[in-house]
């Protein structure tokens, strides 16, 4: 997987916003991550500890808010959670969905001193 470039992006964005706010230190990062992104938070944390070293974000805590996947049936508009291999609508059996949630991947906020 590509957790290393992703972690680098998180650091770049955090440092940019911290600098704008004249912060001395970043203590916490709040990350929103959809279930469908299939990224591994432990792996991001692992890279973070290495690449944030010697920056003002060294030692900052990463907080992940995981957003579960949600589909909406395009035939009957029922909203449901996909269950493993079963993508079809539990209400009407149709296939063809809109992804309502689960693809998010953003840095929501940072805490600075």
């Amino acid at each position, binding site marked *: 997987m590509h957790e290393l470039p992703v972690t680098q992006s998180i650091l770049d*964005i*955090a440092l940019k*916003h911290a600098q704008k706010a004249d*912060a001395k230190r970043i203590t916490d990062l709040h990350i929103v991550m959809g279930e*469908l992104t*299939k990224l591994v938070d432990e792996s991001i944390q692992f890279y973070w500890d290495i690449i944030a070293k010697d920056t003002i974000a060294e030692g900052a805590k990463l907080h992940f808010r995981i957003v579960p996947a949600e589909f909406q049936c395009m035939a009957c508009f029922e909203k449901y959670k996909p269950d493993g291999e079963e993508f*079809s609508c539990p209400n009407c059996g149709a*296939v*063809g*969905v809109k992804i309502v949630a689960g693809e998010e991947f953003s840095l929501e906020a940072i805490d600075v001193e």
Partner: protein
Amino acid sequence: MTQRIPVVERILSANDKLAEENKSRLDAANVFAINLMASPGAGKTSLIEQTLPRLAEKLRVAVVDGDIATSIDADRAAVAGAAVAVQINTGGECHLDAVMLQQALGQIDLTTVDMLLVENVGNLVCPASFALGTHKSVLVASIPEGDDKPYKYPGMYRGVDGLVINKIDLLPYIDFKMDYFQKGVEALNPGLITFPLSCRTGEGLDAWVEWLLNGART
């Protein structure tokens, strides 16, 4: 004192921004660009080899090949008739990103080509997350991979504009349930245009080439 700063920035926004720049550059030169993605061995390079001679009379095609190592694929594309073939070695990275394509575009005189085929690194996961700035994304699936792939790699199947199903000449020998496969595709990507074909026998290639030609004309 601790202070919270709202950020709300997509984490891959830097890549997305660069992808937009790539697209503007391609548009300015009137080059129609395709991002070909697939698992290793599905037949991306074979598809390019079969496609190039069929476009030769009509379009000048550049090929950018992404691989972890070697220039085997770019060499094959050059032999098959690519106007330019550029190899990107990602040095271990599992996908191409917009920066790598930007560097490759720097090695191509875009005024001398009409179409760009980008062969991504063989992988059904990571390439789906990194926009390159191409106009269309195409997934090359193949019969021996099995019919469960849409269910296992929904991110990839969801994000593409076209689907090639390669190696259909092997259907009699492999337990591949086309209905089951297509049900998964239809769930994730309703109405997706699909090209069942065989790079070995040439069956089905005409429809694929016609689709490329139409895309390049518009």
